[in-house]
């Protein structure tokens, strides 16, 4: 982190606001603007986007002036494990089915815990899977395959 950034939280939140704000304005350019009395689809988002970009800019400037707390360390491993587990659940749902998707989700996200042990977590995973199949598929009748298309079912 360069030393001229005195408030990293302000700096990065400013960057985020600036990006979203500018994106809203630039993408909104493709839509019809209209006028205040007859607003087109671009009117409100362009106004909001400009305001957001302005707030981002103020936050950026402020980050060079006012001191602030450093940003806490990112737990990259946990972040990746948990999001990857959820994404995998989505990917496996149709192909492999609910049973396998749940077991993969529990095991992969569970690995993020410092207390992870294979056997107890496997027991929890299988228990969760059976419970969810009973409640959601058999009980509530949600249209989810227990075993997916990969099994030729």
């Amino acid at each position, binding site marked *: 982190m360069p030393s001229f950034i005195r408030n990293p939280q302000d700096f*990065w939140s400013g960057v985020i606001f600036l990006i979203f704000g500018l994106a809203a304005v630039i993408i909104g350019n493709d839509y019809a603007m209209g006028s205040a*009395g007859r607003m087109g689809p671009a009117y409100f988002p362009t106004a909001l986007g400009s305001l957001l970009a302005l707030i981002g800019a103020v936050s950026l400037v402020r980050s060079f002036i006012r001191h602030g707390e450093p940003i806490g360390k990112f*737990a990259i491993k946990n972040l990746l494990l948990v*999001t990857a587990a*959820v994404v995998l659940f989505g990917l496996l749902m149709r192909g492999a089915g609910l049973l396998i998707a749940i077991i993969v*989700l529990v095991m992969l996200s569970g690995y993020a*815990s410092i207390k992870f042990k294979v056997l107890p977590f496997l027991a929890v995973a299988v228990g969760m899977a059976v419970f969810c199949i009973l409640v959601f598929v058999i009980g509530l009748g949600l249209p989810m395959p227990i075993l997916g298309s990969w099994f030729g079912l």
Partner: protein
Amino acid sequence: MEILHFLALGFDTALSVNNLFYCLVGVFLGTAIGVLPGLGPVATIAMLLPATFSLPPISSLIMLAGIYYGAQYGGSTTAILVNLPGESSSVVTAIDGYQMARQGHAGKALATAALGSFFAGSVATVLLALFAPPLAELALKFGPAEYFSLMVLGLVASVVLAHGSLLRAIGMIILGLLLGIVGTDVNSGTPRYTFDLPQLADGINFVVVAMGMFGLGEIIANLEHEETRTVTVKKIQGLLPSKDDLKRIVAPVLRGTTLGSMLGILPGGGAMLSSFAAYSIEKKISKNSANFGKGAIEGVAAPESANNAGAQTSFIPMLTLGIPSNPVMALMIGAMIIQGIQPGPAVMTEQPALFWGIIASMWIGNFFLVVLNLPMIGLWVRMIMVPYHFLFPGILVFCSIGVFSLNNSEFDVFMMALFGLFGYICSKLEMEAAPMLLGFIIGPMMEEYLRRALLLSRSDPMVFLQRPISATMLILSALALAVVLLPSLRKKREEAFEE
């Protein structure tokens, strides 16, 4: 009296076997998630929403409301017994409640919390019944300009009362408003910010946003301070407070209820702010203030009454104006829209059974909570012992299944993961998720009212200042912002939040 007639209608609705059942389920689930640390009412309500779509609107809203105020009860149980506030609203209860438990008065503290909450809940229910109708009547006269200004005031007030950086909170609101706009524009049919993805044509589902930011994001953050928690709970005895105790808690309960009821109505208010404010005020004016922090029963009674009162009066702006004052209310509004009910003042006149049924169910739910929870304390204690590392994968499973079932689409699951990622980054940068969710729900309504107001005024922006109600609300918003920005007052605000 008309009100009695309506209340009778409400109790008639709420006392049907079906609705009683969902009320019970709601308060039971609410208590459970209140007990479980790391799982809040926002994530739970979002998780359960898909399951309620098939219920009749009244049953689903009764259940969702039960989860919210039930969570206040559950949160205080863990705060008192093991010094782990299950909800942010019971953080202050832990201070004196846990000390009482250590001195062997756990039962007394629990009973005080339950009785205080019940009293506050009953008062707040009456207030809701008294004040909602005139407010809704007033709101029926609102035109688009008034609504737009009201939304501005609601959003501004929600950041003024929030803690942390004001600039970032405003940024998050606007970001939320923008995200709410994604999807097909109702007036022109133009798809906006959809990146040609058909899944985004109907906009981003609010359940996806809430679960991502409040469910996933918090799990990732919680995993960082995963502690080795060994919970030991002493045997609880002596549930009933003595006559002397009752005398001591009367005044704090009354003060807590009054304060909580007032703060609950304010946008951005609700349970958490109410309990913090009640504790710090009680600490200043109580005769027993020297004992605060060392197990003062007043320090349990005041915040516990306040958080329950606040949780319930925060329904007033939601039910009468259709304006959410906190993320839970935002989800309730989302649930109403999905059920085909346009939130706003018309709900009361067009759906009196729904409106009064919810109000009556709150009183019934509070009664359930007192009757059920004290005897069931053993079950809750066992639930506290569920270790987090077994809990969070389960939460992830429920979130994922819930989101998938919204549209039977994996796309929503991916979106939830994306919002989880974003939510985690936001928590690191201390950008609060709550204002973003409020903005997200209000976004489309706000645009529509702005559009209509300017159409009616033939693009004259002065319309917002020429109409007295609208002008008052805008002036109040400006004042609120000015107050926070003034350096001297700003310091006081920071001090107040630190306490």
